[in-house]
């Protein structure tokens, strides 16, 4: 009997939480005597700053954080979340399946004891602000007090656009926003809805400036030590859960937008010209930050692939 703990670092009633529950169900149906999976929802065990290390040390068997959480240990991964680089989930899929791109990044992870199992979807990041004037063009960000997650891809983007960037802890953000300590935030739709921040920052724009996703991973030593038959069953269950995850994320974010509109928020769409202005404004980062992270050649390849989906 193998007992494994999976950490779902957000709420259970999200698509990610339900994907973990599905994975557990599938595994325990197929390997009733061999494997039990405990899914720990929320941050009672480990938080964003500690879960990767807990996985590496074997205290956890499965994690699924956003890309940024890995970037302390694997800085190159930040390239996948450069602004406006990945236009859609399909682009993410092709990049991650490319042996020179996703494959090379995954090899880095394996070298440090982490076995990547797949990619789950989070959503496109949308900027929303308090007051009555929405953020529609890059100039609207100038002087705006905006909170972003720690990570150069986020911070450098808004610094480039002239915003007053802060990375205060997520726990402080709803209060800080309500009180006016900050003016704007930029999470994905389901996080917007769950945190109720649309009640305060009512002008939300579908900037979709980063398509955020999760990397599901396991402890490599534990995984390699499993009975091959068990491992294959786990792999198959993971593939099924992943398929379900991809099918349901768009719906989750659509529902979240509906909740926000019903709750009094206004959601603005970008015109093609406005979107173009955003891409032009942040593109310099592809050269500076992107090249610094992975080099010219890899960056060129990344742009070549993602261009197909633009």
């Amino acid at each position, binding site marked *: 009997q193998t007992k494994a703990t999976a950490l779902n670092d957000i709420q259970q009633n999200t698509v990610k939480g339900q994907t973990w529950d599905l994975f557990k169900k599938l595994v325990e149906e197929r390997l009733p005597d061999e494997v039990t999976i405990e899914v720990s929802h929320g941050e009672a065990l480990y938080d964003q700053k500690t879960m990767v290390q807990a996985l590496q040390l074997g205290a956890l068997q499965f994690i699924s954080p956003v890309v940024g959480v890995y970037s302390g*240990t694997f*800085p190159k991964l930040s390239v996948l979340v450069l602004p406006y680089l990945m236009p859609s989930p399909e682009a993410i899929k092709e990049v991650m399946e490319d042996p020179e791109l996703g494959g090379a990044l995954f090899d880095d992870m394996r070298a440090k004891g982490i076995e990547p199992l797949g990619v789950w979807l989070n959503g496109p990041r949308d900027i929303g602000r308090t007051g009555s004037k929405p953020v529609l063009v890059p100039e609207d960000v100038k002087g705006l007090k905006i909170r972003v997650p720690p990570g150069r891809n986020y911070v450098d983007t808004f610094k480039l656009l002239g915003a007053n960037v*802060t990375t205060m802890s997520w726990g402080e953000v709803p209060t800080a926003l309500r009180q006016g300590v900050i003016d704007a935030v930029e999470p994905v739709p389901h996080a917007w809805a769950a945190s109720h921040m649309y009640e305060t920052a009512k002008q939300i724009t579908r900037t979709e400036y980063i398509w955020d996703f999760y990397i599901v991973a396991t402890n490599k030593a534990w995984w390699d030590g499993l009975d091959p038959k068990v491992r294959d069953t786990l792999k198959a269950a993971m593939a099924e859960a992943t398929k379900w995850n991809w099918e349901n994320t768009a719906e989750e974010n659509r529902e979240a937008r509906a909740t926000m509109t019903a709750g009094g928020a206004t959601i603005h769409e970008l015109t093609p010209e406005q979107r173009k202005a955003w891409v032009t404004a942040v593109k310099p980062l592809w050269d500076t930050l992107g090249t610094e992270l992975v080099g010219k050649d890899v960056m060129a390849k990344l742009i070549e692939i993602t261009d197909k989906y633009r």
Partner: protein
Amino acid sequence: MDKLLTKIEDALMLIGMLGALTVGTAQVVMRYVFNTGFVWSEIALVTLTILAALVGGSRAAAEGIHIRITVLTERLPAPVQRYANTLAMTIALAYSLFMAYAAFLYVQFLHMTGMVSVEAHIPTWIIFSIAPLTMALFSIRYIQRIPHAWRGDEVAKVEFID
């Protein structure tokens, strides 16, 4: 030795608390008055405060202000109280040593993985070193206290007078 240790603790507590106070206040002023700020201010503030607090914890061990439940041991006859006190201090020492070791293992692991703080761009093993180093300080403080406990001049705190 004791004097030097006290001086080091004093310096670290002052640097930590006043440094954190300065960084935190500056961050608010920069954000509100000058509409700018540092991304690293939060991690600097937290790190300095934890440093000050854990060094303060070591001083608290030296001064005997860590909260204990003495209801039972107070009722023991004086010579037995001595043994109980020595035992309690020895356990505290053993725990501090174990934590120093566990934290050292973690720092070693962080060093190996090469993890870097995203906000401050410095290796996280440097930040985490606060843990084993302050646990070593705790250990020294408890080593100093054990002979006192054994001799019996380690008494329960003086009652507050109404």
